[in-house]
């Protein structure tokens, strides 16, 4: 994964007054599964369409396998797209759809047929080649769209929310299949989605986008556990955010003071004393137990020193969500904290009862506000 396959350098795209993508720099390696993740309107699809050649960057440069693609129309770029609504040709059979790209490249008829059938087999649609797209289910159409793209063995496969129209179960199954397919073929995938779970499951790296810029680029673990901006922390998964000021710095940790609380967080190089920061703590990182007699209300035990964070609060809500139980706790400062526990751990807790929340500093992330 060392060779660079795609490079976007200072790419900006404006539609009239609206800037969809702003000064974007991104490197995608050969064979990588990179996901552009973000809410609608964050510029992820525009970025994909610029790589495909459907949109022309207002500024900046895109390199595909080292070659600038500027001025190359989509039909001369060695990339293929799986469209959001598949865009299968309704007047052609499944086989004709899949063989379309090969026919355009003047691959001999027999070979094209053989390769198309092979691709259909790869997406588990052997035997469907004579059907028309409208005779297939959504999931099957999706597979045809994938087969139609990968049959060309493109350098890069672009996928624009390809699973968006499928139901949850099928989506999860297709996530696994797509990932396997990608690993097997070794094709570079650039995958656009607004579904953070999908992104976390499938990607080698994720670029979280918002307002036309990349907020953070990293592996699933990095993005999830060490979000660098408040937006990323909030968008990926569920989190508890505290906002406060750094009051003490030490090699092993920082102390952050909010109007009512004092928290210990891991040392972070880019944060200096006095800085205003957000602290993010995932619900599943917090342990809960009935209020113990020794607990002092609200304030952190052993304030100023580095150790476990401990908050007192009152249980407001308890919701069984299947594999876990979700608790909403009002800590003394009036702030609500969401906690996710194993079902057994919260068994004895009653609504309204006083509880103590604890978590380790390294389970929280800090970002400059």
């Amino acid at each position: 994964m060392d060779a660079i396959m795609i490079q976007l350098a200072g790419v900006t795209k404006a539609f009239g007054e609206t800037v969809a993508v702003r000064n974007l720099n991104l490197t995608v390696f050969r064979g990588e599964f990179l996901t552009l993740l973000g809410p609608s309107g964050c510029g992820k699809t525009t970025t994909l369409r610029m790589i495909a050649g459907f949109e022309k960057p207002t500024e900046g440069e895109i390199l595909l396998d080292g070659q600038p693609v500027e001025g190359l129309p989509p039909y001369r770029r060695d990339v293929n797209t799986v469209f959001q609504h598949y865009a299968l040709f309704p007047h052609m059979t499944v086989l004709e759809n899949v063989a379309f790209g090969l026919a355009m490249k003047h691959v001999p008829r027999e070979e094209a047929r053989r390769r198309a059938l092979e691709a259909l087999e790869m997406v588990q649609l052997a035997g469907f080649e004579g059907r028309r797209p409208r005779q297939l289910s959504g999931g099957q159409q999706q597979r045809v769209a994938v087969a139609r793209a990968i049959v060309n063995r493109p350098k890069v496969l672009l996928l624009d929310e390809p699973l968006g129209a499928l139901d949850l179960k099928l989506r999860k199954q297709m996530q696994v299949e797509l990932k396997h397919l990608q690993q097997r073929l070794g094709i570079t995938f650039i995958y656009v989605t607004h579904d953070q779970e999908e992104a976390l499951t499938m990607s080698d790296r994720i670029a979280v986008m918002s307002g036309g810029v990349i907020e953070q680029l990293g592996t699933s673990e990095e993005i999830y556990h060490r979000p660098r901006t408040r937006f990323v922390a909030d968008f990926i998964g569920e989190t508890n955010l505290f906002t406060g000021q750094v009051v003490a710095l030490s090699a092993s940790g920082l102390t952050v003071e909010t109007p009512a609380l004092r928290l210990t967080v891991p040392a972070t190089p880019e944060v200096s004393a006095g800085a205003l920061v957000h602290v993010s703590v995932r619900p599943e990182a917090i342990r809960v137990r009935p209020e113990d007699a020794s607990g002092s209300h609200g304030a952190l035990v052993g304030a100023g020193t580095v150790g476990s964070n401990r908050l007192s609060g009152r249980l407001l809500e308890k919701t069984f969500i299947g594999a876990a139980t979700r608790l909403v706790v009002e800590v003394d400062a009036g702030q609500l904290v969401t906690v996710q526990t194993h079902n057994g751990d919260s068994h004895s807790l009653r609504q309204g009862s006083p509880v103590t929340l604890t978590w380790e500093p390294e389970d929280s992330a800090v970002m400059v506000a």
Partner: protein
Amino acid sequence: MTAGVGSGLTRARASLRRLPFLSRLMTRGSENGRAYLLLAPTVFWLGLFLLVPLVLVAITSLTVRGAYGETVYRWTLANYARFFEPLYVQILWRSLVVAFWTTAICLAVGYPFAYFLAQVPRRHRGTLLMLVIVPFWTNFLIRTYAWVVILRTTGVINTVLQALGLISEPLSLLYTPGAVLVGMVYGFLPFMVLPLYTSIEKLDHSLLEASSDLGAPPWRTFLRVTLPMTMPGVVAGTILVFIPALGMFVVPDLLGGARTMLIGNLIQNQFLTARNWQFGSAASIILMALVTVGLMAYARSFGFEGEELVG
């Protein structure tokens, strides 16, 4: 054609059933019978003004013309036989050729225009579609006379060309087959553009992107995706132009000379000038049979059911 009508009825019934009141009407007691009441006005109208005259024409075509043009009820096929004389076959052939070229030119001119229309931002489309339809506000006869003014020796074109010194003698444009073609194309172009526009406008743009993405340059995208996907519009447009073009008599009458008599003029002459209703009727029936058979073959080869004609 009967197949088309049949499936059209099935569809019409299916869509009528979606209305609760009508579905009750149609399923209750004497079932569909009452729903057909809704068809009664149409059936009455078509029966009285289409079917009855048609039967009269068919009967007339089989009778003998009396010395003063009256109908003598003696059965004969002589009128049909007469049509196959070289003179008339030639007229029919010429009509087919003119109708063919009218259709072909309308398609060649209309397709790019309809495509353009479908690409224009929505807010401008209304205006442009309006411009296509505006000519219908004026009588067709008057619009055809306008071409006389444009094409005649002292007409607009000749005057301008002479004034510019490009020609010394006026060109003879009027009363030529070319003039007929110009008038026909002018008159029928909207009938080609509108169904084409409807078809192209429905075309999913992402299909064109997919084609380009898969390596097809624009012209191959057009041949492999755009054209096949808009074929219903092409079929509808060609039918809407070819059939009336085949029977047209106003344009050849006004813009064509004596040498450009078409089958429409022939029939018109038989009825109004020659007072030979028998032969005119036979020619009408032959023309109608020809169109029906041709149309069925044409429509069938495209799996066309007729709904495209109404967009």
